[in-house]
């Protein structure tokens, strides 16, 4: 999903495949107006809440709505800060510890807009993108519960 609004290019992908961070950044560097690029990479971690090792993390999503919800979050960010580029890639399917889950890149003329908007997008992505995680262990599985703190974070924006 690609959209260009007020000179800001927003691009969102939901995919099973891994992403190439360097290639994504390289494609932004070529734009002459960009002075700062922020990239955030979310990675699968073993929370070590259980006695067993995490075998895999399953990510389920709502096809169609996920893309729209993330696009809407990015548009909100673009209304608040002068940013020229937003790239979000969220992976779904079965992932292993250490695998990439999500990539958020924001780019602008100056650093502050990029920092702020990347954090804003990640905060909203956590509780407003229709994605659910399930942790699989050798002997059992459990759905990751949303955190009250993540919801409260949104009130600060």
């Amino acid at each position, binding site marked *: 999903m690609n959209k260009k609004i007020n000179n800001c290019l927003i691009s969102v992908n939901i995919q099973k495949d891994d992403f190439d961070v360097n290639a994504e950044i390289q494609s932004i560097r070529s734009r002459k107006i960009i002075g700062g690029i922020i990239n955030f990479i*979310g990675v699968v971690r073993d929370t070590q809440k259980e006695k067993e090792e995490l075998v895999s993390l399953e990510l*389920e*999503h*709502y096809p*169609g*709505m996920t893309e*729209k*919800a993330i696009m809407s979050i990015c548009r909100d960010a673009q209304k608040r800060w002068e940013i020229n580029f937003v790239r979000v890639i*969220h992976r779904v399917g079965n992932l292993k510890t250490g695998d990439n*889950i*999500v990539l958020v890149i924001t780019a602008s003329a100056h650093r502050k807009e990029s920092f702020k908007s990347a954090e804003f997008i*990640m905060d909203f*992505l*956590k*509780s*407003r*993108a*229709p*994605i*659910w*995680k*399930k942790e699989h262990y050798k002997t059992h599985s459990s*759905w*990751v*519960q*949303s955190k009250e703190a993540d*919801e409260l974070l949104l009130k600060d924006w």
Partner: protein
Amino acid sequence: MKILYFSWLREKIGVPFEELEVQSENVNDLIKELIRTDQKYALAFEDIKSIRVAVDQKLIQNLNVSIKNVKEVAFFPPMTGG
């Protein structure tokens, strides 16, 4: 109308989606209508506060939202993206 379920709600209902002819005019009544048809819905919707709803792929804040002429309604637990 297409009704979709995700995460543990999908597991409790047993299907990812279903096409149903419904009489209800809002989300609240739709939940009650489903509960009347089968015990599995009663179990799935037991803790209504832990359920989020999207109407035509837009998150709603109020269960009184009309579902007249909508294509799909989705039920799911709080999201855990990122």
